[in-house]
């Protein structure tokens, strides 16, 4: 089963505690379940405020799963691993 690549955008703000934790949590999940089947883009909105407007970001950290469809938005530091897996539809 040719699996589609996962594309994530993670919005963080600088090096805030929650942002760093979110990056760590996401990396753990991806390494454990998706190995090389993912693209991760991390956007620091303190430097790219216009992107925050574009992607309708108000909470930090926010993870957007761009593909595969459907598009999902996850708010929080991704510490609730089972919930993250369920929402991202990762086995």
């Amino acid at each position: 089963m040719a699996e589609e690549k996962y594309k994530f955008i993670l919005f963080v703000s600088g090096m805030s505690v929650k942002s760093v934790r979110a990056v760590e949590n996401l990396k753990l999940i991806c390494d454990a379940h998706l190995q090389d089947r993912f693209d991760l883009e991390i956007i620091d909105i303190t430097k790219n405020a216009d992107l925050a407007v574009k992607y309708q970001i108000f909470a930090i950290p926010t993870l957007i799963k761009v593909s595969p469809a459907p598009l999902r938005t996850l708010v929080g530091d991704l510490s609730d691993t089972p919930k993250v897996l369920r929402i991202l539809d990762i086995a």
Partner: protein
Amino acid sequence: MIKKSKQKAESKFTFPKTPTGVEGLDEITEGGFPKGRPTLICGGAGCGKTLLSMQFLIKGITEFNENGVFMSFEEPIKDLALNVRSLGFDLNQLIEDKKLVLDYVRVERSEIDETGEYDLEGLFIRLGYAIDKIKAKRVVLDTLESLFSGLDNEAILRAELRRLFYWLKEKGVTAVITGERGEASLTRQGLEEYVSDCVILLDHRVIEQVSTRRLRVVKYRGSTHGTNEYPFLIDETGISVLPITSLKLDNEVSSEIVSTGVKGLDGMFNGGGFYRGSNILISGTAGTAKTTIASYFAYEQCRKKERVIYFAFEESPQQLVRNMKSIGLDLAPYLKNGALQIHSSRPTLNGLELHLLTLRKFIKEFAPTTVIIDPISNLITVGSEHEVRSMLVRLIDMLKLHNITALFTSLNKTGDSLRVDIAEESVSSLVDTWITVRDMEGLGERNRGIFIVKSRGMSHSNQVREFIITSKGVDLLDVELGPNGILTGIARKSNQIRKKAKALKIQSELEWKDREIMRKRKALEANIEALRNEFESVEEELNLLKSTQAFSAKEASINNNKVKTKKK
């Protein structure tokens, strides 16, 4: 930073404020919203929160040169722009000019999942980004509470909101936050706990099928403010608030006289008319020609090239013009050349406050020198006595401030003559001049009488004058005094006839006497003639006698001489 702003406020005597540019609101808040602090505007659905905050931003840009950011949580930018477009605000132009930033924050519960701890840094950054982009001084957040419906973690939200308000203060922007009215608290989510500098409550209330919007300043930290509920109006130019008692009694007075338009009525005032800028009440029962007198006044003012605005609560403009034409008063040319404006509406169309605001608006736009309201008593059908009185006080205050001569008519209820009418009672102490027109019944007919009840600062006639309306207009008749007072109508006529008969009688008597004397003179003259004749005849007789005697004496002397000679 917070400490700093507090110190700043303390060091100054006047609390720094940001004018809202909303008509009337600045008067109530004595200068506007607290500068550099958040203000909460709360109210139920559809009471004008968004509009008020939008107007605050737009006026800031257009009138005070302060750029603004509008962050909407409810309506997309397109909808917002369209909504206020109908009020004459072109948001897109302002955005293009880099004076306004609209940011729509979409919080959709179905699209969001919470997976741990988060904060609202995104919101802060977006807001900060927008503020910095145009150097905004004013910020509106409409309605923050949408966040509560989109996100579950209330603890985080509350902490973040608290942080947001501090952050806004730190930024030095004057912020307006709108909130939906809650059942027990001012806002559903208790936003007032966080925004405690200034809270404004909007209300939309229906009393006896008439809706009135009201505004109240619930709190204003560090400043005095009007505490009452103030009615406000939303119309094609946005919101305007009407302060109830913003005026002091210190308006300028004029001693110029304006004519009443009715010649005889002018004569009843010592000064020859009303003072300019005074207010006049014409009260009377139905059909006593109050409107006619009011129209005369309007006509006279137009004739003198003044601007008149006529609010008719009973007749349409066309009807008024037609009716006045029937008594020889042609208002149409003045309507045409713009000197006269007639506004007709049913009193029940609006609440009292709205009426007042509409009057105020027209007066402001048209800048008349004379205002006629015909009749004010009809407004009473809309509100209670207290409301009517307070409205009229404000109306009169406003008119006085602009030095506008105002004429009100008031319809009295017939029958109960002992009790003063509400309208009359509520205005009589406010007006400067009070003219009453009344029916005078008797001898099987009804006549109109007019008299002056009071006229401040001017002596006036104390007579009840009868007046008649003919196809040529109104005419005040001269006073006809009878044995029991002033006479009108038939009594006047019969008195006049009686007087005429009396005069005739005297006249004929005089003539008769004249003739009598003539006769007497003639008789006398005849007598004189007769006497003279008699006298003459006697005289003649005497003369005859005298001459005969003289002749005989002569004869005798001649004879004597002859005898003497003979004897010689």
